[in-house]
């Protein structure tokens, strides 16, 4: 039905390929065709803006230039790190003719920054609640989910005005429409440690522990995320967190596309849920 540009980013084609599978399957079920950006390159993630500011504009700019060349007006980047880097660069380009000139030279393609970059929540917002509701096959009953936005999905708020950056509700709105129960909790926008997993694991384990504890304390039986790094830290690292803090969390971590996919009647294999680390077979938070 709709054609939309797709920038998977490194994570989704690497260790978070379960996320990519989930995104693709769910969007396909909703008749959204993803046109993968041909020959995309890494957005630079946090390393680029840490080490070389110019590079942190140039790498996303190359991808935006490709998007313009390949004629996509909208570009889905399911990883919030990628979407933020792309949006930041796009805004800087759109604002400065000098930068457009400079970057066009560096990335060897003309670039204007006019591409509209969307994160995963925004694509579902664009599809709209009526369409989502109409496609539901199995309402998400029994799910008591803590919606976790993490740090980058809604920030910086000046650039990402799709939801309130302090009290976001967009995932809650979607999931309650699909029959899930969402919990009110306090760590919706606290950082999990993001890409520091490898460089500074201790930080990640501490921050993520707080998030898991708070979600459970407010009655969540699972957490939903829309970010590959959040998933790594809360899912893959959950065992290490439990070991370090001597507690048992046992919380399933779903991608937003997982829960929507389940509601649309897709199965766990198709969505890649079976490849998560914490899988509560038998008594899963989500009975579907």
């Amino acid at each position, binding site marked *: 039905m709709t054609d939309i540009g797709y920038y998977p980013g490194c994570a989704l084609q690497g260790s978070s390929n379960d996320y990519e599978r989930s995104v693709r399957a769910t969007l396909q079920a909703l008749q959204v065709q993803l046109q993968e950006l041909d020959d995309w390159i890494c957005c630079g993630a946090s390393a680029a803006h840490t080490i070389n500011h110019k590079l942190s504009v140039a790498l996303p700019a190359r991808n935006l230039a490709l998007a313009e060349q390949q004629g996509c007006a909208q570009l889905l980047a399911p990883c919030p790190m990628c979407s933020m880097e792309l949006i930041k660069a796009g805004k800087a380009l759109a604002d400065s003719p000098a930068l457009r000139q400079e970057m066009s030279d560096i990335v060897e393609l003309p670039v204007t920054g006019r591409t509209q970059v969307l994160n995963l929540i925004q694509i579902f917002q664009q599809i709209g609640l009526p369409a989502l509701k109409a496609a539901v096959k199995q309402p998400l009953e029994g799910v008591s989910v803590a919606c976790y936005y993490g740090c980058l999905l809604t920030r910086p708020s000046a650039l990402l005005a799709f939801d*309130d*950056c*302090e009290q976001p509700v967009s995932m809650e709105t979607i999931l309650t429409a699909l029959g899930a129960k969402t919990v009110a909790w*306090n760590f919706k926008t606290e950082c999990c440690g993001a890409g520091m997993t490898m460089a500074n694991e201790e930080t990640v384990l501490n921050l993520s522990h707080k998030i898991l504890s708070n979600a459970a*304390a407010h009655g969540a039986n699972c957490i939903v995320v829309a970010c590959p790094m959040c998933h790594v830290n809360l899912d893959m690292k959950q065992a290490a967190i439990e070991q370090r803090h001597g507690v048992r969390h046992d919380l399933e971590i779903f991608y937003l596309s997982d829960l929507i996919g389940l509601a649309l009647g897709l199965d766990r294999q198709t969505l890649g849920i079976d490849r998560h680390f914490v899988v509560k077979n038998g008594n899963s938070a989500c009975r579907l």
Partner: protein
Amino acid sequence: MSRIGVFVCWCGENIARTVDVVQVAEASLQFPGVKHAAHYKYMCSEPGQSLIRDKILADRLDGIVVASCSPHMHLKTFRGAAQAAGLNPYLVEIANIREHCSWVHQDKAKATAKAIDLVRMAVAKVRRNNALQAIKVPVTKRALIIGAGVAGIQAALDIADAGYEVVLVEREPSVGGKMAGLSETFPTMDCSQCILTPRMVDVGQHPRIKLYTCAEVESVDGYVGNFKATIRQKARFVDIKKCTGCGECWNACPQKKIASEFDYGMGNRRAIYIPFPQAVPARPAIDKQACLKLKKGVCGICAKKCAAGAINYADQDQLLEEPIGAIIVATGYQLYQISAQQPTAELSGYGEYGYGQYKDVIDALQFERLVSASGPTGGVIQRPSDGKEPKHVVFISCVGSRDNAKGISYCSKICCMYTAKHTMLYKHKVHDGQAHVFYMDIRSGGKNYDEFVRRAIEQDHARYYRGRVSKITEENGKLIVRGADTLAGTPVTIEADLVVLASAMRPATGSDDLARKLRIGYDQNGFLSESHPKLRPVETNSAGILICGACHAPKDIPESVAQASAAAGKVLVMFSHKEMQRDPEIAKINESTCSACFACVRTCPYQAAEKADVRDRAGNLVKRTARINQGLCMGCGTCVAVCPSKSADLEGFSDQQIYAMVESLL
């Protein structure tokens, strides 16, 4: 005019250092019409002025130019000198050779050449000046005061006590404003109600104060000394002349759970209610949004209970006219709304503080009601969520204030003080409790103010942390407050039972609309503008309209009251004259050439250009014309610029004068 005197001032060294004053004086003698030229060390000094006076008399000068400092500095001085020598004061012009010349240029030759040009322009102008007479207008000796908070009350009593009539308009059902709801007040800690209530009663009973409550000013026409105010008396559904205030009605009203505005939602009232027991007038009003009879046509209990027959469900708004001579605006303030939803796009809320989401996060006025003996808890400190006594209370300063990102850059000036007060009131009631304050700076300038804040810290052991709070969350009935102690360089987390936000003071809703109706200015934050911050602090730029209290800027009670008395004083000065004098540098219309297109009528910002008929002796209409209302015209000259037939002109800045100035530069 051909006997012009030019007086060049040295201003000590200030002018003479860069401008060759002797050369300027000599050159001026060459200008057409100049009869005499002199220079002197200090023209504004007594010998300088007498030099001018003597020359006017000796040479029968019919115009003078003083080449000196800015006209904003000494035009009045030299007009006075001229008048003392019998010369019409409007035949004086200034050539500004100090601020606009000697102080901004280094090169003496260029500066002198420029000074000569400036004198040439002034001479060209003064030759075309007209002798003008100050305009006299009669004065209606009645004052309108809008807003009956402590400021409006003070001004009303001052004027009424001096023997003049006052019309006091308050939009709430009672007078008193914010102060009526405060607990004890800094810096003396006297009970707010104890000091205010007697004055409220005085207002209610004063023979010369005509009080309108539940009323607003609909429009104001006319001009200083001669305003006509139209007042909208909103339907109250209770005839306060018949009502005895017995209370039978509100005690019987079944609508019990209406959030009380006076308690800022911390308590409830009925649909028929008096806002608080000491209200003036002590007469109820019916809230038409809440009353079952008015909404659905059922109930009617209050009317049945009322022996006096005062209830009238068919009551309608009424428009009433009042003749007025002067107006004082005292509409006060409101607190910035902290919740994420904001009334205007420029403002944004504090999602991170969870106001509106966590019951135990309240604002400062709500806290006032919580500690007030007349408040919903009778002065017992109980937190809203579960009624428990809070053992740790966090007070956060500068919420909204000094926060560019949220749209308010100014300091609210009084919150440092009331926050210190709050910690003391709290400690005096909860002896084993701990108050914590997050602040950025402590601003406590004022008599005994800093001592007051130190007392909160030293005697009542309030713990002050210098840093803002980033986020508040709720955990097991505790509010987790994450702030910083920038002096120690660490983050600080406090588990609080109650959080009080010292939110910014903003102008009362609708004060910008009111300002537009009154044609007075307001600043980018919506506070009303004074004419000059130092020299005319309670006047506005519209003659006869004054401001006082927190409608002008964040203010505490002492300041509001001082300003109110100042505004009253200004009104009394006006009322002490039979007639008023106004600067005559205003527009005039040549009615014989006016083509009655009324472009001036449409553009005049003061509605001073009016349509009029020209009639012959027999009263027959000769023609239509525009005419200037001398009381209203402020002399902006817009009408002159828009008049297609060149019939409008401005005294003091007439076309002839301005063109002559420019032409002198040829």
